[in-house]
C-alpha cells in the first residue's frame, strides 16, 4: 500500500529522529519527531526530492494537559500525500526552533501559537502577540487558563455591565429584566433594585 511505502521511506530517510509513526484517518500519516534533530528532520522532509513535503498546509499548537505539542501538516506533490508532524514539548518551558527559514509563510502561524498557547519559537524574527492585545495576560488555549474578570478596568461579567449606578426604573430596564426573569427564574441578571 502507498502509505506503508511512504512510512518505510520516511523511517529510512529520517532514521532515529522519528519516535513513532501511525496511520491517521483521512489518509494521513502521523509522524512524531524528536525535538533534538527537529530542524534537520524538517529540512530532509522538505528538500529531499524523494519526499518533497514542501507545502505547509497548517500549523498549530496543542496543550494536552500533561505536555504540549506543536503540529505541522505538510503536503507532498511528489507522493500526493499529506503527513502530520508532531513534536512534544515540555509544558514548563515550551520552546522550539522557528521554521521561518524553511517556510517563510509560517511566521504568523507561529506568532498565533505563541499568542494563544505561550509556545516560544526561538529564532523567530518577530515573536510578538498576533491576535490578542500586547498587554493581555495568560494564554487562552491552555487547559489551565483562568478567565479574567476584567481587562484594563473593563469588567467582563455581564451583570455588572447593567449596573450603571442608577436604579433600574430610572434606566428603564426593569421591565426588560422582569420579562427575562419570568422566562427564566435562574437568570444571571439580578432582580431590580
Amino acid at each position, binding site marked *: 500500500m502507498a502509505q506503508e511505502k511512504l512510512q518505510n521511506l520516511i523511517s529510512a530517510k529520517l532514521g532515529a529522529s522519528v519516535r513513532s509513526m501511525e496511520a491517521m484517518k483521512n489518509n494521513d500519516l502521523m509522524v512524531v519527531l524528536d525535538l533534538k534533530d527537529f530542524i534537520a528532520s524538517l529540512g530532509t522532509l522538505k528538500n529531499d526530492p524523494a519526499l518533497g513535503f514542501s507545502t*505547509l498546509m497548517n500549523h*498549530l499548537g496543542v496543550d494536552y494537559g500533561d505536555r504540549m505539542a506543536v503540529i505541522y*501538516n505538510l503536503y507532498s506533490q511528489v507522493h500526493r500525500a499529506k503527513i502530520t508532524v508532531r513534536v512534544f514539548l515540555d509544558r514548563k518551558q515550551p520552546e522550539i526552533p522557528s521554521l521561518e527559514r524553511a517556510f517563510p509563510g509560517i511566521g504568523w502561524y507561529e506568532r498565533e501559537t505563541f499568542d494563544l498557547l505561550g509556545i516560544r519559537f526561538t529564532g523567530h524574527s518577530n515573536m510578538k502577540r498576533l*491576535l490578542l492585545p500586547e498587554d493581555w495576560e495568560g494564554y487562552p488555549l491552555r487547559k489551565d487558563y483562568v478567565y479574567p474578570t476584567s481587562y484594563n478596568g473593563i469588567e467582563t461579567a455581564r451583570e455588572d455591565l447593567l449596573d450603571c449606578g442608577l436604579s433600574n426604573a430610572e434606566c428603564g430596564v426593569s421591565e426588560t429584566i422582569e420579562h427575562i426573569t419570568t422566562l427564566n427564574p435562574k437568570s444571571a441578571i439580578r432582580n431590580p433594585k
Partner: protein
Amino acid sequence: MSKYSTQEMVLNMGPHHPSTHGVLRFILQTDGEMMVKATPDIGFLHRGIEKIAERVTWQGFMPYTDRIDYVASVNCNLGYAVAVERLAGVAVPEKAEYLRVIAAELSRIASHFIGFGALLLDLGAVTPFVHALRERETFNDLIEMLCGARLTHNYVRIGGVAQDLPPGFAEKCRAFVDHLEYEFVEEFNELISFNTILINRLANVGVISAETANDYTLTGPNLRASGVAFDLRKDESYSIYDRFDFDIPVGRGKYGTLGDSYDRYFIRIEEVVQSCRIIRQALDRLPQDGEIRTKLPKLFTVPAGEIYVRTECPRGELGFYVISDGKKNPFRIKIRTGSFSSMTIIEHISQGVMVADLVAIIGSLDVVAPEIDR
C-alpha cells in the same frame, strides 16, 4: 541631489478604511507615493472561536462556523461537518450530499460576487459592484427559501443538512444559474472586465509567482491565479465533488504577468461559471426521495483521535484540525483559513509598489477580516 531628498513617512490605514474589507489595519511606511513596507495589524475581530469550540458540544459549534467567514458560511459549515463526520465515521445520506453541494456552490458564487465586487469598488468603479450585489440578492432569496437565513445560514448539520428543498426552489435556482452563465457573466465582462482602465489598474500589479505562493501557503483562487491547477474539489475530493464535470480555471497572464492582480480578479469570474455547471448537474441528479439527515444520538460523542480535513472555500483552503478525547465537546479545534495566509503575503509583495496599488492587491487577494482573526 540632496535638494530633492525624500523622507520616509509612516501612515496609518484602517481599521476603518473602506477598502480594508472588515476591520484591518495597515501601518504603511511610504516614501512619497512609493511603499516601502505595509505591515498588517490584525486581531480586531478576534472572537476566540477556537476557545469557544472547547466549551460547546459538537453540534453546538456548527452556528459558530458561520462566523468564521460570514460571506461564505455554508462552505465553512461543510468543512466542519466533513471533518467531524470523517473522525466519527458518520455516513451522510445521498440526497443530503447533493443539497450540500448545491448550497455550497451557490455560496461560493455569492462570495465571489462580494470578492470581485468589492475589489472594483475599492478601485472606484461603483456600478459593477452594484451589478454584482444585484445578483447576490437573488442568491439571498434562494438561500432564505432553503434555510430561512440571509447571512449566517447554518444550513449543514453533522450527518446531513437542516432542510429539504422547498417547492419551487429547483426551478428558481436553475433560472438563476442559467442567467448567470449565459447572460450575466458576458454582460459583466463587457461592462468592466475588458475595460482598459481596469486592465491598467490590475495588470502587472502584485505579481505572485507559483514558488512564492507555495512558500507563503497561499491556497485557493489566489494560488490558481499563479498558474497552479490545484483544487481540493478535484485533487482531494470530499463530499461528492468527484461525480461532477467541471474545469479548474488557472491564471494565464492574459493582460500582463502570470499571477498578477488581474489574474486573481478574472479567475473568480471564471469560477462562477464552473460553479454554475456544478449546480446544474447537481439539480439534474438530485434524488427525489430519501433521508436528508442521519439520525444521531442526543448526546453525540466522537471517538478519541485526531484528524486534519481541508476543503475548498471561496477564499482558499479551509482546514479543520480536530482533536477529540471522546467527550461531548471538542478537545481542540484549529481552523486554518485562506485569508490568513493571503494576509501574510501582503507584507512581502507590497514592497516597492505605489500606495494606490496596495488597495488593488488587498482587494484582489479577497481577504475578509473575520476569517483572519477567527
